[in-house]
């Protein structure tokens, strides 16, 4: 087991290098660089000045040299500084000689995105397991149909549209919830408890919206998984042995039906650091989605590469954890009976 683990972890290094090289090359295929955005069409900014900027950012060097420079920096865990937001560090804060601290872009965007996504995943899984189980046990009744209807409606509603409607209803018409942003004006004067409360109030709508499509998908997944398991022979056996129905459903069936969800959880780990651009723009939340989207539009290479590297690292970790989770949950995998 340990040997397997070490092998898997060591394998991640060439994978990461490969992924970063491909991302770097693909990024370079997109026409333009930071200078085609900043002041590109301002008659006061001359082409010579832009050429000079290109040289200062090493953008005039061949791609492979640029990649080498990047790799050299990253091997010391230095993610570099952003082009677009005036040399703000990509990953983590730096301190200058006067003790001023400049926070990293990812450092600031990640916690809020993580918080929203973790809350989202928690809500998605807890609700959809209940819904899915309910629908499968009561297959072809009104319960099942309304769950299915809910699932499809949730899937079909465009999130941004529902978001705007909810913002209008809860924020403008009724003033129950704040409309956008993360904090109320003057939140710094509040007590710590009230600050947390204020933040949570701001997060209700974004989390709700981010749950919507996931909720639909996962409950359908649980329902179908449960149906499959419920029709298997060992369930009939269990029932024949006279175990009560609750135990059959929740212990015997659900445990087996949930197994594939482990893979989904594992695969959603990299998704944890990615935010939705649309939701973040509408709710004015400075999260990872907006950070990445803006970086791509601005051709802010250090930020793009930083997020991609962390994202691919987490994907690999996620896969590893999913495999380990499987081994833990399924004795057949653990004992090497099935691969």
């Amino acid at each position: 087991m340990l040997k397997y683990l070490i092998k898997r972890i060591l394998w991640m290094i060439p994978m990461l290098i490969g992924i970063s090289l491909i991302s770097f090359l693909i990024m370079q295929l997109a026409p333009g660089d930071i200078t085609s955005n900043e002041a590109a069409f301002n008659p006061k900014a001359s082409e010579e000045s832009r050429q000079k900027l290109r040289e200062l950012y090493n953008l005039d060097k061949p791609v492979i040299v640029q990649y080498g420079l990047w790799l050299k920096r990253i091997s010391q865990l230095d993610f570099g500084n952003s082009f677009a937001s005036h040399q703000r560090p990509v990953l983590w804060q730096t301190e200058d000689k006067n003790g001023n601290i400049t926070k990293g872009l990812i450092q600031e965007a990640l916690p809020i995105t993580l918080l929203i996504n973790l809350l989202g995943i928690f809500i998605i899984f807890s609700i959809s397991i209940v819904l899915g189980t309910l629908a499968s046990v009561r297959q072809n009744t009104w319960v099942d149909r309304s769950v299915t209807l809910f699932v499809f409606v949730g899937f079909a509603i465009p999130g941004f549209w529902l978001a705007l409607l909810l913002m209008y209803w809860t924020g403008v018409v009724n003033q129950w919830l704040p409309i956008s942003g993360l904090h109320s004006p003057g939140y710094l004067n509040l007590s710590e408890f009230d600050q947390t409360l204020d933040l949570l109030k701001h997060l209700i709508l974004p989390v709700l919206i981010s749950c919507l499509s996931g909720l639909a998908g996962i409950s359908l997944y649980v329902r179908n998984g449960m149906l499959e398991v419920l029709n298997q022979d060992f369930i009939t056996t269990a029932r024949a042995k006279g175990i009560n129905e609750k135990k059959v459903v929740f212990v015997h069936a659900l445990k087996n039906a949930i197994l594939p969800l482990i893979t989904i959880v594992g695969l959603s780990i990299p998704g944890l650091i990615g935010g939705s651009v649309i939701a973040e723009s509408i709710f004015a939340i400075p999260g990872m989605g907006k950070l990445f989207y803006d970086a791509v539009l601005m051709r802010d290479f250090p930020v793009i590469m930083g997020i991609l590297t962390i994202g691919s690292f987490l994907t690999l970790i996620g896969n590893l954890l999913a495999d380990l989770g499987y081994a833990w949950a399924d004795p057949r995998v653990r004992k090497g009976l099935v691969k």
Partner: protein
Amino acid sequence: MLNKFLSTASLISVFLLISCSNDSYEAIHYKDNYLVEDGGEIVNAMIGEPSNLVAMIAGDSASSAIAANIFNTLLKYDENLNLAPELAEQWFISEDQKTITFKLKNDILWADGKPLTSQDILFTWKLVTDPNTRTPYASDYLLVKEASAPDARTFIVTYEQTYAPALDTWASLQILPQHVLKDEDINNTFFSRKPTGSGYYQLDQWINGQQLTLKRNRNSTQGQANIDKLTSRIIPDTSSQFLELIADNIDFMNINPIQYQRVFPSREDLKQRIGLYKELGNGYTYLGFNLKKAPFDDIRVRQAMNYAIDKNEIIKGVLLGLGEPIASPYKPGTRWNNSKLSPYPYNPTKALALLQEAGYEKNADGILVKDGKPFEFEILTNQNKQREMTAVLVQRRLKEIGIDVKIRVIEWASFINRFIKTGEFKAVVLGWSLSLDPDQYNIWHSSQQGPGQFNFVGYENPRVDELLEVGRRELDTSKREKIYHEFSKLMLEDSPIVYLYAGYGLSAINKRVQGIKKPAPPAGIYQNSFEWYIPKALRRNEIAAQ
């Protein structure tokens, strides 16, 4: 594409919502006149976060908008767009027109209390022209051959050749403090996030990604502003901004023509507490041709395009009437605009006649054909809803006279690099936003056609070259006026681009903010924002947090 869909859909949904509901906000009865009172806070919304607060190294408009409140320039434009003193009290131009001497105001201070002297101005000039400074704006200041600061109040610049836009350039260079920055690397300094300026305001707090708050600078070199705090909230989505505006969480925002012409007129309760303002911007939208390629190398074809496009229809359809047709690349109502010129009228018959003269014949399907080839081309534009809609209206009018137009929308950086820089286009819908100086050498002179330069349409007219050269050497305003009027006339005749419209900038401002000039002066309503005030009776509850 996604963006376009989203913004249209969200607009429609917000519009529907807003037009069918009636919420209950207390009706305030506004008086005609309020006493000017000191203090209060005004909150606005911005689409993007400033990258930093040193304008010379920031490329984005959000940065310059905030920095303009914090820093001063030597000169400024007054409400009628004439140059006026800011840090400089007076300025003199030498006999040979190559040397400008600025006399600074007496006893002016930085926000930290240190004196602001001509050394700071010299320092700023050295900084902007330093090859290691990451600024795209150096070229204007590199024309200065010599700069000196003989005493604390005098700053002298000498140009190699007379340079007429010189004064304009000194109205845009924000002066930075030498005593704070002398040992700093301007490209990577904390100063850009915690600046010391000399303007009406100074930075109070910057919460990354969320908001910036400015508070009054007690040492302002221009006297005291009325409003105590300016807060800019960063809300990327304009529909969300609008919801915040009608929920009374922000005081002003830029709005779009639909909101101005449709939403507000249908909502009495909004009109009652939110004022609408419009002002002509400094930019215009045009259809530009590639003059190096057939068929637009033929002046008759370009003029035909100009006659075949109905500009008033575009203004009505795209801007809901909130724009002006133009006939020169200058803001209507300013001295540089040649008022004798008028735009090409919509005249498809004349357009067809010109095209026939150029050798085009209509075939059986009603398509114009020359030498067996149908007249077809592609209009490129970037992801900008107004430009896309404009292109569609152009397409429709050209189809009527037998030209097959396709439209292609491209992401900005790709657009610039793959098509504009390489000259691989036939026609584009784009816009120019211009400075207040009439010099447009960089855009229209025949020498400015290299990759990355701004005469990408490839316009060449020896007389225009001559006028542009003379124009930037002539400091006498009335002589310059004549030069640029002739330049505009030639441009209109040659028709290297079709002027489509100059749009109005639209703002919605809560009526608690008083002292806004209406109608807007030529320089726009924000020109006197330091005189705006919020009467105590109308202030938002200052402990707004719940």
